[in-house]
């Protein structure tokens, strides 16, 4: 009984750790894709996915450290990851990121 109580007390920590392991594994796998990735598009998608994983990590750490100050970070990573992916996508598509005004 005591063991079970102890387990429930630590349940959050254990869950966090398992999730963290999972996310880390996916980040490492995505890293492999970035390094290896046969085409640049593969790399771009991998980077985008890493961004989303990082949002998760930031949120986990926020829970782990019991603070609400990290929500900004989560949101920011969301925005930046989007912007970065768009930039890379545009680069891959057109060769430039900011086009010159032709008018």
């Amino acid at each position, binding site marked *: 009984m005591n063991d079970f109580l102890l387990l429930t007390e630590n349940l959050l920590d254990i869950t966090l750790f398992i999730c963290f392991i999972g996310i880390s594994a996916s980040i*490492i796998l995505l890293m492999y894709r*970035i390094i290896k990735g046969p085409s640049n598009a593969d790399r771009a998608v991998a980077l985008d996915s890493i961004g989303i994983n990082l949002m998760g990590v930031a949120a986990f750490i926020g829970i782990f450290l019991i603070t609400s100050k990290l929500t900004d970070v989560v949101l920011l990573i969301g925005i*930046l990851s989007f*912007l970065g992916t768009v930039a890379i996508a545009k680069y891959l598509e057109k060769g430039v990121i900011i086009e010159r005004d032709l008018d």
Partner: protein
Amino acid sequence: MLTINLAIFIPFLAAIFIPFINNRFKQTHIGWFILVVPVVLFIALLRFIPTIARGETYINSSQWIPSYGIEFTTYLDGLSMIFGLLITGIGSLVILYSIYYLSTKESLTHFYIYLLLFMGAMLGVIFSDNLMALYVFWELTSISSFLLIAFWYHRKQSRYGAKKSLLITVSGGFAMLASFIMIYAMTGTLSIREIASSIDSISDHALFIPALILLLIGAFTKSAQFPFHIWLPDAMEAPTPVSAYLHSATMVKAGIYLVARFTPIFGGGDLWFWLVSGVGIITLFVGSFFAVKQTDLKALLAYSTVSQLGMIMSMLGFGSAALHAGYSPKSVVYTQAVFAALFHLVNHSTFKGALFMVIGIIDLQMGTRDIRRLGGLISLMPVSFTIAMIGSFSMAGLPPFNGFLSKEMFFTSALNVSNLDIFSLNTWGTLFSVIAWGASVFTFVYCMIIVFKTFFGEYKGRHHENKQFEPPIGMLISPIILGLFVVGIFFFPNLVGKYLIYPALGHIFPSMTLQLDAYSITAWHGFNTELMMTIAIVLVGGFLYLTLHRWRGVYRLFPETRSFDAVYNHSLSGMEKGSAKLTKLYMTGFLRDYLVYIYLFLVAVTGGVFIYTGAFSFDLSQDSPVSSYEWIFVVIILTAGFAILFAKSRLTAILLNGVIGFSIAFFFVLFRAPDLALTQTIIETVTTVLFLLCFYFLPEWKKESSPPSSKITNMLISVAVGLIFIVIGLSVNSGNLFEQVSLFFEDADELAGGNNIVNAILGDFRAFDTMLEVVVLFIGGIGVYSILKLKKWKGEENIEGD
């Protein structure tokens, strides 16, 4: 009352006004106005003679840099009186001579400004009591001499001679400055008088010997002593009045003055004795020996000046033995050597000045000073011949000219010093009189060359364009006056001895009471060794002169390529080549090499200092434990970091760089720094985007094809730098010496009204840094804008003009 302090500045003041006077009176030769300056100073100094002869001294002091003990103090005593009279007296005669020598077509304002600068500086050297003031004037003489030697600066030889003399004399000047600083360190005063009175307490100081040697190097370079004599013959490219004034009568005697002035301070030891007398006697011999070889009259006179200066120097050295022996009736023979030195100093200035002026006249009238093209001038230039004969015979040491007296006294002192039993002189002392005699023989030979090769023999008129031979009378006035002095001093030597030289002796030997009657000069002193030596000189010298063409070949044993000039030239060009080689060796133009130097230096110095001081010690037990989250990010960063090194494409490298940046942001998150994490993520994104922006314009990503050896060096260096920083970081972390200051900022809410401590520090406590960082960003932005806007596009006109 005209004090000496003011007198020194009169030439400088006059130099300022020369251009104005020249503009005002264009018709008159500017030299006539200048002539007033030395004449006034000469008369002013003459008025001091009676009081100085009574043993009085004059001290004038004015503040200059009192906080460093540097005062402008002048000290007029017997010793500086002799030099002062020489400088102003011969200065007047030289200016009078130069009025006729230089035509108004020359840039006379320059000439007289330099000359007056030199005169003022020289007066400053001899009258200064403060070492620093002395040094300032000393360098001024070097500089003004440099300007005067290169007066005809369009000639290559003039520039060469000027550079050479400047290099040598200024190097000596620096040695002297170092010596002065050492003296100051020993005695704590810069005043020569005070140093002389406190010298007994420091004679076994560790700096005493270095100071002595450096001071002598300064004196020897200025006075053209062996082996620094090489600049003097090349300085003969100067106009003849300059040669007569600077390079025979005044500047080259500054070193003599220095030695005489510092004899009471450093004299009395065997090192001083051997250096001064030894170098002096070698200079005497070398100068006279090589003078015979010269065919250019001025070069001959230059070597003879070197030789005579060596003679004066050696006599000063002999005299310093008196300070060792202490005062006794016997030591009079050594103090007499100094008396003879000063007497010969005066004599030399008179006859050498006259000789230079005569040769200037011959040069001007004949268009050459080469003895091989001169001859038979006796009937054409009788006055010049008379003066040249007086000067040469005096230099050779013949009666009835003043050189005879001083040469006899020189022999007396050399013979006396051979009999000394101090400083291990009983074994080597005889060499002094032998070398002195040998050198005098050569002196006799070259003096005969001056007189007989120039004025006798057949007239080689076809070489000469000029038909009117004897120069204008004004040009002859100065050499005639000097010639009169040469003869006059022979007949009335005791006037000079009593009023000029005897008062100076008391300042060279301050601890002794000297009797005046021991220093009277007699022209006839019986049939003694000295007279025999002179007779032998005449006989042997005459024989050598007559057989000159037979033994001239001996000079082929001393070719130009092995002389000290060659050493100077080779060392100068060698230094240039060597430094060029050295610079080329490390300034390769490759950024990689410079980075290697920087990192090697960093590793060697930082690591070396830490190892040397034993600072590499750390203790891991106090560190906080590493959580599993941290481990994961460490692994990510490591993987990405190593992967960058082996990335195949640029895009991979950029993306991996982004991964590192974001992981760092996560360390900020983990270590509870949300502001940093926010900024880091944004900046990382922007950087990645910027990288991608440039991507388009960059060339293909090429693998550097560097040899494996340089790759290994790079690796070793980078590993070393990394290790050093890791170890330093660990060591710093384990040594927590002080209380943290951040506790203060924890009250940010109360102090600054903000909950966010980071922002309170950035915007409130330390806002000054933030402001400047904003400026940095601003400058960066403007910089990027201007680089892009002002770039010279292809085909566009270059508006910057380079």
